[in-house]
C-alpha cells in the first residue's frame, strides 16, 4: 500500500497534461497500476487508456478484478495478445494491435479510444518502454514517442510511460528524458 500512496501522491502534484516516466522495480508493478487506475484516474475523473505490450490485457483485467478495481473508465490497447496467437476471449474494453512493431497502429488505436471517450480527459499509460524496445529499434521508438507524447499533450491528456529499472539501457533513458516532463522514481520507502 505504501507504493500506491507514494505514487498517487507524486502523480497528484503533476501539472495538467504532463508526460511522465515512471521508473519502477518489477515487484512494484501492480501497486503502481493500482495507484494509477484506482486512485489517480478516479480522483481526476479521467478515462484511462492502458497500452500494454508487456502482458496481455486479459491478465491485467483479471488482476483488476482481484484488486476490486472497476474498469468502466479503463480501456486497453493490447499489442501483445495477437502476436502470442492466444485464442483468448476478446474483451469489450480492449482493442487489439497485431504486433508491438505496428507503432503507427498503436497511435491510431489510442486516438480512436480518445475519440470514443471524448466526454472526459484521458490518462494514457504506456506499459512499457522496455517491452516496446524488445520489438523496435531505438530510432523508430524515439520517433514514435515524440509524436505520441506531443499529440497527447495537445489533447490535454496525461502520458505515463512505465520503465522497469532492471531493463533500462542508456539509450532508453535518453529517449525518455527527451519526451518526459518529469521522471518519477518509485522508491517504496517505509
Amino acid at each position: 500500500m505504501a507504493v500506491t500512496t507514494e505514487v498517487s501522491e507524486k502523480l497528484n502534484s503533476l501539472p495538467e497534461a504532463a508526460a511522465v516516466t515512471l521508473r519502477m522495480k518489477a515487484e512494484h508493478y501492480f501497486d503502481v497500476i493500482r495507484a494509477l487506475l484506482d486512485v489517480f484516474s478516479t480522483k481526476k475523473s479521467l478515462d484511462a487508456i492502458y497500452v500494454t505490450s508487456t502482458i496481455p490485457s486479459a491478465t491485467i483485467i483479471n488482476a483488476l478484478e482481484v484488486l476490486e478495481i472497476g474498469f468502466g473508465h479503463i480501456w486497453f490497447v493490447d499489442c501483445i495478445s495477437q502476436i502470442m496467437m492466444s485464442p483468448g476471449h476478446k474483451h469489450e474494453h480492449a482493442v487489439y494491435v497485431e504486433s508491438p512493431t505496428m507503432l503507427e497502429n498503436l497511435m491510431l488505436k489510442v486516438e480512436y479510444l480518445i475519440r470514443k471517450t471524448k466526454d472526459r480527459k484521458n490518462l494514457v499509460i504506456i506499459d512499457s518502454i522496455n517491452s516496446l524496445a524488445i520489438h523496435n529499434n531505438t530510432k523508430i521508438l524515439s520517433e514514435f514517442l515524440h509524436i505520441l507524447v506531443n499529440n497527447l499533450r495537445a489533447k490535454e491528456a496525461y502520458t505515463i510511460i512505465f520503465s522497469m529499472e532492471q531493463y533500462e539501457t542508456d539509450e532508453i533513458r535518453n529517449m525518455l528524458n527527451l519526451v518526459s516532463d518529469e521522471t518519477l522514481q518509485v522508491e517504496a520507502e517505509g
Partner: protein
Amino acid sequence: MAPREKEEPEERERCITGIDGLDNILNGGIPRGNTVLITGSIGTGKTSLCLEFLVHGAIVGENSLYVSVTESYEKLLNNIIPYDFFDRKLIKDGRLVFIDLPVIYDKLGLEKLEFEFEEVNILVAAIGNIVDELNIKRLVIDSITSVCYRLKTQENIRDFILKLGSMLSSRGCTTLLVSEISPTEERYSQFGVEEAIADGVIVTGNLERRGDLLRTLQAVKMRGTMHSRAKYVLDLTTVGVLLVPLLKGGSIATTGG
C-alpha cells in the same frame, strides 16, 4: 517611395471533408469544385474514405451522391462500416443519395459495351442533370476505372474526365473519382490519363514493413492549396478514418499503392 503591397492570391473556398487527418494534410480541406482521383489497390480504404466524405457532407447539409459502378449500393450499404455518426435518416431525407450507374446506362439506352464521343457527351449531361436536380455538392464515382473500360481510347477518357470535371466544378460540386490500380502499378491510374486531368491525386496503398502490412495514404497532388506530400498510416474505424504520420525509423519495402 513606399513599397508596393504584394497582392495575396485569394484563398479558395474549401470543402471540409470531415476527415480530420485529411483536412489537416490538405491545409483545411479540398478546394471546392476540385475533381480528385482517389487511387489505390484493393483493400486500401478508398471506398470507406469516399463514403465518409459523403456522410460528413450530408451531415453539414451538402447534398451528397454516390454513383456505384460495379456493385449495387444495397450490397455496399450492408458492408458499410457502422460509423457512430451515420444515420440512415440522411438517406431518407435525400441528403445522401446512392445511384447504380448501370441503371443510368439503361435509362439512357447506353447498351453498347464501347462508348464513342457521342455517348460520352450523353453520360456527362446525364450526370449533370442529376447533380442539378438534386443540388449535389459532393459526388463520388466508384469507380472511374470501370467507366473508363467502356471508353476504350485515351482520347475518350481524357474527353470524359475533362468534361465531367469542368461541368461539376462549374456547379461547385467537389468530386472524388475512385481509381483502381494493381499493387505493382507504377502510375496512379489504370489508363495513365486520369491523374493528369484530375485536380488532385490521393494515393492509398499497402506498405509492408518487417512483415507488418500498413494501410497508407498520400496526397501527391492538389491544385489550389498547399498540402503535405508525406505518407500517412490510416485506420478505418467506427469514428471514421484516422491518420497518423508514417514513422521513418524502420527499414521499408513497398508492396503497392
